[in-house]
């Protein structure tokens, strides 16, 4: 066992932290206030090689590993959870299934654009009546000659303003779960459009849209994997995606904790820094400990995946624990700041609003408990 990050990983942390402080942090509050997804920031992430961290260089990637990717998402989320999830959805949910299940042509055509950051990617699974019960989707895909025609809609799609989506649709209703197939959809395909932008509690600077398919023509070469393999692709994708969310949650918690620690040492009441009161210092001690544990679980999951070992249980545990930690830490961070914590002039209320979704998406924490319980059995 070795609990030290390699020099390469330390370097990546340093590099992403500097990028985050310089290019992302200064506008985080404003982008949240205006509910504005800033594509330029994503483009800059591409320029410094963040958008394809784990993929081979032949596909435009950085040739690094999942641990480096987790560190990058964590450092971005520390200053802006919205940009953290933008990268996470882009890599884990869109790029990964293409990397894992795509043909060489598909990888050359799509993975490269994603890795370089010239295209932004998303994952179209969820529908109004298919959340936790993803298999109950209604979007259909009918093979007609050289094209699949897609009809239906998806909601709550991260990076909805992007160009490339891995979309799941029913190719054979009679087969239930085994009738779902996965497709690579380019936003330029006829019949594709985006619906409304979701008005959210937090991660307001992340792009979250409805995707609409009205006789959307997808070339049959864009079938990802085989017909009927879609559900397996979705579930294995989410296995890895949860590691990204674990990293996002860890980052959010870290940012909130640092702000609270800092504030408590400067703010004086009753003639001394409020840090001196056990009520406050013990709260911070609990926060720090949980973040440490969350980080270790997150890195373990990433390392396990990178080693080529089964990582489903590790990533589920990491996501569950880190997101619960983020919710608790941010709620307490607002408390440490007192009245100022409730003001939008200080960052912690935004972090608390951002934290909540990490307990819900990419599998609610209840689903995660189900997943973990299955591994225990």
């Amino acid at each position, binding site marked *: 066992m070795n609990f030290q990050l390699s020099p390469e990983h330390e370097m990546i942390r340093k590099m992403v932290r500097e990028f985050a402080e310089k290019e992302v942090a200064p506008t985080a509050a404003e982008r949240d206030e205006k509910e504005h997804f800033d594509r330029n920031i994503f483009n800059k992430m591409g320029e410094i090689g963040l958008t394809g961290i784990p993929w081979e260089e032949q596909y435009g990637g950085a040739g690094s590993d999942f641990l480096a990717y987790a560190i990058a998402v964590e450092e971005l989320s520390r200053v802006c959870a919205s940009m953290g999830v933008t990268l996470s959805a882009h890599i884990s949910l869109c790029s990964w299934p293409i990397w894992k299940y795509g043909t060489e042509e598909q990888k050359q055509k799509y993975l490269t654009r994603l890795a370089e950051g010239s295209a932004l990617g998303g994952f179209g699974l969820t529908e109004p009546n298919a959340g936790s019960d993803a298999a109950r989707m209604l979007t259909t895909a009918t093979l007609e000659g050289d094209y699949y025609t897609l009809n239906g809609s998806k909601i709550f799609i991260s990076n909805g303003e992007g160009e490339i989506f891995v979309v799941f649709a029913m190719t054979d209703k009679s087969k239930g779960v085994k009738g779902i197939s996965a497709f690579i959809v380019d936003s330029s395909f006829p019949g594709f459009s985006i619906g409304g932008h979701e008005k959210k509690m937090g991660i307001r600077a992340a792009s979250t849209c409805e995707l609409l398919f009205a006789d959307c023509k997808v070339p049959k070469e864009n079938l990802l994997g085989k017909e009927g393999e879609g559900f397996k692709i979705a579930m294995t994708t989410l296995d890895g995606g949860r590691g990204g969310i674990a990293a996002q949650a860890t980052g959010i918690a870290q940012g909130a904790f640092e702000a609270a620690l800092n504030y408590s040492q400067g703010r004086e009441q009753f003639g001394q820094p409020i840090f001196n009161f056990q009520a406050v210092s013990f709260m911070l001690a609990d926060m720090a400990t949980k973040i440490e544990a969350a980080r270790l679980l997150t890195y373990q999951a990433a390392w396990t995946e990178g080693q080529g070992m089964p990582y489903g249980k590790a990533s589920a545990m990491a996501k569950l624990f880190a997101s619960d930690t983020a919710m608790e830490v941010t709620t307490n961070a*607002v408390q440490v700041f007192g009245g100022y914590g409730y003001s939008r002039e200080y960052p912690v209320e935004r972090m608390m609003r951002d934290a909540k979704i990490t307990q819900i998406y990419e599998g609610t924490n209840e689903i995660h408990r189900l997943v973990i319980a299955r591994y225990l059995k």
Partner: protein
Amino acid sequence: MDFKLSEEHAASQRLFHEFAQKEIAPYAAFYDESAQFPRENINKLAAQGFMGVPVPEEWGGAGADFLTYIIFIEEISRACASTGVILAVHTSVGTFPVLYFGSEEQKQKYVRKLASGEYIGAYALTETGSGSDAASLCTSARREGDDYVLNGSKVFISNGGHADVYTVFATVDRNLGSRGITAFLADRDTPGFSIGAIEKKMGLNADITTELIFTDCRLPASQRLGQEGEGFRIAMSLLDGGRIGIAAQGLGIAQAALDEALRYTKQREQFGEPVFNFQAVSFKLANMATRIEAARLLVYQAAFLKTNSLPCSKQASMAKMYATDTAMYVTTEAVQLLGGNGYTRRYPVERLMRDAKVTQIYEGTNQIQRLVIARALQKGF
């Protein structure tokens, strides 16, 4: 002991509930999104005679007892937490100071108008350098003949700009510590008194919260409330009632969240059945309901003690701490139970969660509440 509300209290509760659900609840999302003072709500409340529920009838109030007032705050808050706190501030710390400590002239000048809703009241204690450490406030009141000249500023003041009269705390001599603090009644249009920036908050967005700025603001001695140096005692005496009021607000928010979570989980189907059927969901709801039940009993107990003029400081702090911690817990779980939908502004629970957080902070942080409770334990009661 009797755990049943009296006929009268039950009837009041039904009245408040129906009014709030019909006239206040439908607009809560709008007021939150637009961050506007809910003037329409206030007009409707005034028309019902609800702007002075616990104020004696001789002063134009409804003459209800304190428990009735607490039930009122709970039901209004259940419909709209912002409106709930506006009322709690207006009554508990906007009207009661004048009613209990005012001279006859001051009561004649203000109480009737506050009770009718013609005037809105506010309370200005907190400053940037004095939150929990309220006694360390800096706003000064320099005596000049028959006047006091106030200099300084207050922060996080509810109803800022919309209130007509403000109970303001300033010190005549910082060297005297808390014994220099003196209370004043400042009319909004007093020269030298201006409303500063509107606070942009996480929630409770229709509760307009501002800075108040006093620049050589001259107030005649007739606007002094109580004696010089009595201010801190006045502030402390209002705390119990204020805390129970906020406890009721927290309770109302929690109840609204539970109501919505129950409604949603019974009809939302996944895996072929209502999600309520899954133990993960139903057990969460069971926990939420139990915490609310306990919170309600603590709040009503504190209200009962106060109504009967029995000592209630420990119970008031317990109620405030527990009910608001419950509100935070219940609303966070409610968002969870509504899943992705719960995170959108199309459903009310994310607003309830944003509203709940400040209830753990204001009117004495829950850390200060624990201090109060601990001291009571130490003294043996």
